[in-house]
């Protein structure tokens, strides 16, 4: 099997070289607090809960891109598709800590849980309280909401928590809003191609032309099943059927929508999906309050897309609309 085509220098150095580029490109937003620990230039402040996110690399602009005033205060950066070790998590938390406690938020993956939990223990020894809210928006990944993965819905969930922290709410409230945001965010995706790690440059899995993985994660993990590649509207319908059933929102409810590219699926296809999503939401009498369309949570060069719907209430609407100014994401 031939090697995949990537513009890199050395697979093992890819994450550090990327990080160097991110810091060089966004000096007004980001600085390095310690190796693999990035903190917002304007974000952490005394008396404010520190929102610290993190996870494996390869999902850009998630997580790094969401660090900035009004959203995450700091980020721990892992290897490709690998949770960061405890140390960068600790370093990110210490750099962002304003004395009002730290909230760790990241996707629900075994590796991340173990590493961030170890970080929490280390912070405890420093007298810093760190709590954790896991994102679990991928409705395809388990029937049990607590066991689900965190995927593209991260954007909305982190955004809500970041706004709460920016509004100087206490840790209890920030945590509550983060959990509330997570509970009302629903994502499902399909993959149309594999991706490849920079170290191996081999496709993660084999997906024949004409097929797709349904209920795909964001690490090239297989989905819930493999099926024939269907037209965009049929794909959107299958996802929206699942989301609408799970969400069970009353007519007239407001929602936020994210149509996300897993990497190489271009805007043309995302907007074709979006047109159908908007139709389906209108048919269900749901009001689109705001939308994002683009690559927000990716698996490097994987082809495919996910649809996220967040069921808003007044509080979540306020949190999503609250301004933020990050390296790769802005609101207001």
């Amino acid at each position, binding site marked *: 099997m031939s090697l995949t085509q990537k513009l890199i220098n050395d697979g093992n150095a890819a994450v550090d070289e990327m990080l160097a580029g991110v810091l060089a490109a966004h000096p007004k937003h980001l600085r390095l607090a310690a190796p693999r620990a990035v903190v917002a230039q304007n974000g952490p402040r005394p008396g404010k809960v520190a929102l610290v996110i993190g996870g494996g690399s390869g999902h850009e602009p998630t997580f790094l891109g969401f660090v900035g005033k009004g959203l995450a205060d700091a980020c721990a950066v892992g290897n490709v598709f690998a949770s960061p070790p405890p140390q960068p998590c600790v370093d990110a938390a210490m750099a962002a800590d304003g004395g009002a406690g730290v909230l760790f938020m990241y996707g629900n993956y075994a590796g991340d849980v*173990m590493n961030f939990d170890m970080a929490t223990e280390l912070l405890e020894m420093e007298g810093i309280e760190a709590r954790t809210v896991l994102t679990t928006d991928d409705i395809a990944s388990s029937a049990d909401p607590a066991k689900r993965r965190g995927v593209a819905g991260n954007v909305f969930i982190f955004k809500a928590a970041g706004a709460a922290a920016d509004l100087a709410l206490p840790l209890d409230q920030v945590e509550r809003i983060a959990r509330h945001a997570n509970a009302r965010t629903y994502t499902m995706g399909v993959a149309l191609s594999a991706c490849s790690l920079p170290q191996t440059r*081999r496709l993660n899995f084999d997906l024949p032309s004409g097929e797709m993985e349904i209920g795909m994660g964001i690490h090239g993990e297989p989905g819930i099943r493999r099926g024939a590649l269907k037209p965009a509207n049929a794909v959107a319908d299958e996802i929206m059927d699942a989301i609408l059933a799970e969400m069970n929102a009353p007519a007239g409810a407001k929602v936020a929508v994210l149509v996300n590219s897993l990497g190489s699926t271009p805007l043309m296809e995302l907007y074709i999906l979006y047109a159908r999503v908007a139709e389906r939401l209108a048919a269900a009498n749901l009001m689109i309050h705001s939308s994002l369309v683009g690559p927000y949570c990716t698996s490097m060069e994987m082809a495919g897309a996910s649809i996220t719907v967040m069921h808003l209430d007044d509080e979540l609407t306020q949190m999503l609309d609250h301004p933020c100014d990050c390296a790769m994401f802005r609101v207001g």
Partner: protein
Amino acid sequence: MDFTTETCTDLFTALAARMAAERDALCALDGLIGDADHGIAMEQGMQAAARAVPNLPTLQDQFNAAAKAFLNAVGASSGPLYATALMRAAKAAGPRAAMPRAETPALIAAMAEGIAHRGKAEPGQKTMLDAWAPAAEAARSGASWPEILIAAENGADATANMQASLGRAARLGERSLGHKDPGAVSASMIIAEFAKALG
């Protein structure tokens, strides 16, 4: 012939080389039911460990240094699991520059406990514990190194018929059947290097 700090250094050199050699195969295995990076994690972790262990006075220092180096190089699931395993090995080896070879199977038992503790896993969930636990049981029952290795390999093979209920593959349900767990396969390779060095 005791298990000395020099043997320990050689052991980690061998582990690093083995993981480098198996990297792509382990990634391919992980690609079938996970995220295709297990070989990279194990290679980077063991290479960092191998760089950390030379010139330390005791086996305990070496295993602790290996634990810390592995963890910081890797993160992922393997990082905390092997870091905890290696810290338990450090404790079992104790603050001495050598330990009698006959005692070394206790290292395997200690590592398995560390992995079970950190991962909160039970045997049968299709994880690396399915190689480590039977190996540890053999070790505790006084088995020889070749017997310990066979227990680990049988354990790894058996994961092919398990449905994952922990870790990344747990979301796959039945689709995880028919593929060996990459963590269990790398575990049996690690135990093979221990057996070669200490058997």
